């Protein structure tokens, strides 16, 4: 940057044009993914067609794709050297354990409340749910 010569400046402009293109390309990717998500949510809302589990998996997958483009292109991490990429991305691997452990804990908590507290007074609907689930298990 400091010792800018004429040729350097020329290269700068060239690089600039291609990176402006990348910026807008990233914008369109993010916009299209968001529109797909919203459309899918509305289709599911009106027809119930793609099963909830499938729709949610698609949403999470697309969210990670969007996150990738924001971090790699807008935050420029994809163009940094490997050392920087690793020092940022490696600690985030903890999230894999973090998410699995806590969601599994929440799920087991729900099952314990349903199965281990059969005598407690509950709203009618909830009792029905317990009955069905209990019958399923036995």
């Amino acid at each position, binding site marked *: 940057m400091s010792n800018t010569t004429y040729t350097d400046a020329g290269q700068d*402009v060239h690089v600039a044009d291609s990176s402006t293109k990348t910026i*807008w390309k990233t914008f369109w990717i993010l*916009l299209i993914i968001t529109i797909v998500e919203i459309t899918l949510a509305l289709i599911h809302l009106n027809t119930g067609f793609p099963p909830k589990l499938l729709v949610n998996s698609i949403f999470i997958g697309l*969210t990670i794709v969007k996150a990738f483009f*924001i971090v790699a292109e807008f935050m420029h991490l994809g163009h*940094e050297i490997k050392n920087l990429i690793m020092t940022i991305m490696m600690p985030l691997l903890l999230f894999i354990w973090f998410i699995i452990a806590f*969601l599994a804990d929440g799920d087991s908590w729900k099952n314990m409340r349903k199965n281990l507290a059969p005598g407690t007074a509950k709203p009618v609907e909830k009792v029905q749910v317990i009955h069905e689930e209990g019958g399923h298990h036995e």
Partner: protein
Amino acid sequence: MDTAVTAKKKWWSGGHSPFNVSYGKLMMWYFLLSDAFTFGALLISYGTIRFMSTSWPDPNEVFRSFPGLGHANVPMGFVSLMTFILIMSSVTMVLAVHAGHQRRQKDVAKWLAWTIVGGIAFLSCQAWEWTHLYHEGAWWGRNPFVNADGTAATSNFTNFFFTITGFHGLHVTSGVVLNIIILSNVLKGTYEDRGHYEMVEKVGLYWHFVDLVWVFVFTCFYLL
């Protein structure tokens, strides 16, 4: 900055940053990493509580209003607009950073100004949404919405919604404040005198992070 990056370069032998970025930028990255864990912890605790609940309010029932449309049922409508505004403001921010690389002072100022406009627009949308939900009876500790299966819901839903979107909104607010400070420095010529616009890049990293968090908040509260 534009040092040739070759595979054989000994990054850890000293004399230069092993990360090939300035101290300030590296520290911004580390701060954002810690902030990612803060938001991650909030969203995962929300997920945990949701997994332990037998049922949960349907977001399409809760978030279905649009300003000026009265009682029209527009699920996802308003939040789509908010998402679009935030993505757009991220784009104007990259364009500001980009203009900074080329030392085009006026363009940096122009794109930063648009980013500030986007940030304020997003915050206004959030203010409207919060006010609307408040008038429907939702607030911390109060939840007027029923679960998807028709049972009465606890206030877990509203507590998490207001806490997490509020914490995100706080980040947007401080981002707007930072952008305003940076814009005034750009206009004063501080970075022109300094010879580089790296400060715009650092604040830009923060701004994109705020957009990144919104992507996850959007999925967790409005889609799932």
